[in-house]
């Protein structure tokens, strides 16, 4: 990988991010009684999208917001402008990542629109988000934050609204834990504005749809498992190389499984929740391939997993896949609305680096260039540790970008034990494990889930 390219500047990036930051300060203060600095932030955002089809609507929205009279539709327009700006940042960063990995990305083809979504609950979500924008992060209190609870409760049972529900639930819990906003030492301005903007756009009917664009038949070679969680939701994504049976170019794909959860289900409990719903988790953990027949695949390279379309394949070591199959695979395209730097997660294979630990910070030095290693993202319920990463000689990871720089999230590493390479996967315990260290955590998680199910059985249906 050409790590040198990752450290180079990108034209226009600072200007786009400056407009984003200025708008994020607007949301920090809130739009109930806008101050001159906030009006400037709004004007700056409108100016940044002046050359786009959004120009007129955003200019009007900025004016209304600066006067303290913005309505729901105006807030949607502002969220769209911010999303468009970060979309352009995403595109520039993705192009840079493609240059560095030497792997081309896919072409986006818009799928047929999906099914209808209930309009009322989406409008209720929009209205809550507008209230947040008026309060500002510094003005949030329990009253305004608790407005999300009803919306989330209405959304959760509908699988078509799971995207919105998981986002709003995680966002609202974070805001609730941060109340009152006036007492906050510091505000995660970029993050909360991201979550707000995404939630706002996902209230537009059809925005969250990701229908299948085709079917996948062929061999799936797992690279590793990426886990994501907040208090009441968890998602595991398996990154893999898909080799079509018809001999077409191999593709980088993802397969996801997610579930809502009580906040006390953590650690090994997360795998226990997900494991029965995707046989691929066990395959990825054990180093096996899977054979797919007619598995639905979206235009973004997401397999819509169903065990009915998959069966167990031959053993396939992730490091062999990374060395042999990954370099020739094509990357997926990204849906227009999903273009955001935080979405960048490019599978990469690294070797020949020097690992350097400086306090909490770990870096890999490759051809004289430093790459930060985010070991904090390694799930606790797994055999991979920051120490193993620091001692590694090869690494399968996800190239990501946050707060101004690229970094790598390890999914698996090779270390040398008695002169032999030993692979350790972050998601090795995803499908279950015989590991002694894991057994205790598995047992504790089973017990916790059993208590909750017993309590639910006794109290829930009264």
């Amino acid at each position, binding site marked *: 990988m050409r790590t040198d390219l990752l450290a180079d500047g990108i034209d226009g990036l600072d200007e786009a991010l400056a407009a984003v930051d200025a708008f994020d300060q607007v949301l920090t203060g809130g739009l109930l009684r806008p101050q001159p600095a906030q009006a400037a932030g709004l004007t700056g955002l409108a100016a940044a999208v002046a050359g786009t089809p959004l120009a007129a609507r955003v200019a009007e929205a900025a004016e209304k917001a600066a006067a303290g009279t913005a309505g729901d539709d105006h807030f949607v327009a502002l969220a769209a402008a911010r999303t468009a700006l970060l979309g352009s940042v995403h595109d520039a960063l993705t192009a840079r990542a493609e240059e560095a990995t030497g792997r081309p990305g896919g072409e986006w083809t818009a799928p047929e629109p999906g099914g209808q979504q209930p309009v009322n609950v989406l409008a209720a979500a929009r209205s809550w988000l507008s209230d947040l924008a008026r309060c500002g992060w510094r003005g949030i209190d329990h009253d305004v934050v608790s407005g999300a609870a009803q919306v989330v409760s209405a959304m959760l049972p509908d699988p078509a609204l799971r995207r919105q529900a998981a986002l709003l639930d995680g966002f609202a819990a974070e805001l609730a834990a941060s109340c009152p906003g006036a007492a906050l030492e510091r505000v995660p301005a970029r993050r909360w504005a991201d979550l707000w903007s995404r939630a706002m756009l996902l209230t537009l009917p059809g925005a969250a749809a990701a229908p299948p664009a085709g079917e996948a038949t062929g061999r799936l070679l797992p690279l590793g498992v990426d886990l994501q969680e907040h208090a009441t939701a968890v998602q595991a994504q398996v990154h893999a190389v898909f080799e079509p049976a018809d001999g077409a170019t191999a593709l980088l794909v993802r397969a996801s499984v997610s579930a809502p959860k009580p906040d006390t289900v953590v650690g090994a409990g997360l795998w226990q929740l997900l494991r029965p719903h995707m046989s691929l988790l066990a395959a990825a953990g054990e180093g096996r391939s899977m054979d797919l027949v007619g598995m639905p695949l979206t235009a973004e390279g997401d397999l819509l997993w169903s065990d009915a379309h998959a069966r167990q394949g031959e053993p396939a070591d992730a490091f062999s896949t990374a060395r042999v199959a990954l370099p020739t695979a094509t990357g997926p395209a990204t849906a227009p609305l999903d273009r955001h730097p935080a979405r960048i997660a490019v599978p990469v294979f690294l070797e020949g680096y020097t690992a350097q630990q400086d306090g909490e910070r770990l870096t890999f030095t490759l051809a004289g260039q430093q790459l930060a290693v985010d070991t904090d993202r390694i799930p606790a319920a797994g055999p991979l540790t920051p120490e193993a990463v620091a001692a590694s000689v090869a690494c399968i990871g996800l190239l990501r970008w946050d707060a101004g720089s690229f970094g790598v999230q390890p999914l698996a590493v090779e270390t040398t034990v008695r002169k032999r390479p030993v692979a350790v996967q972050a998601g090795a315990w995803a499908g279950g494990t015989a590991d002694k260290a894991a057994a205790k955590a598995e047992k504790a998680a089973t017990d916790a889930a059993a208590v909750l199910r017993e309590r639910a059985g006794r*109290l829930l249906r009264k």
Partner: protein
Amino acid sequence: MSDWERSSTVRVVPPAHPRRLAKVPFVELADGRLQGVVSSGSDIERVYVSSVSAGSFTFACSTNNNRPCGGARGYFCNHIRALIGEAVLQYGAERVTRYLRVDLADHGEPSVLSLHAAMSAARPAQGDRSAAAPVFSRFLRHLAYLELAPTTAPLPEMQWFPPTRAVA
């Protein structure tokens, strides 16, 4: 702006620390209170709904059938003690102290003991039973998460919620 303020994926709330749930299946810092549900030791059908308000430490404890707790007469009952203990396990003593706005000046480092001592020393008032119904319904809502079907459609927004090895 700092890197922290310009990060999309900073972890604002650390995940709950794993704990045994048999005695206290539910505890949360919400609605300006430490609140939760404590299973009765003698009757499997009965739970106690207990809470302590932030700042004033006004406390309440009653059963899910709205009968007053015999132990909460003028001071914290065993259920509230258990609730504080489990909250400290789940969230860490610092976060509980901060959320409840407890001044530990004369009581040492944040811990179950110091929290209990400092709040008791403030001679908090006993609240009415009105808090119990909403807390119990939040508990039921919490349990209902177990009944929601997992999905294999991707949730792109979960990219904003990475795990962290840091625990509460």
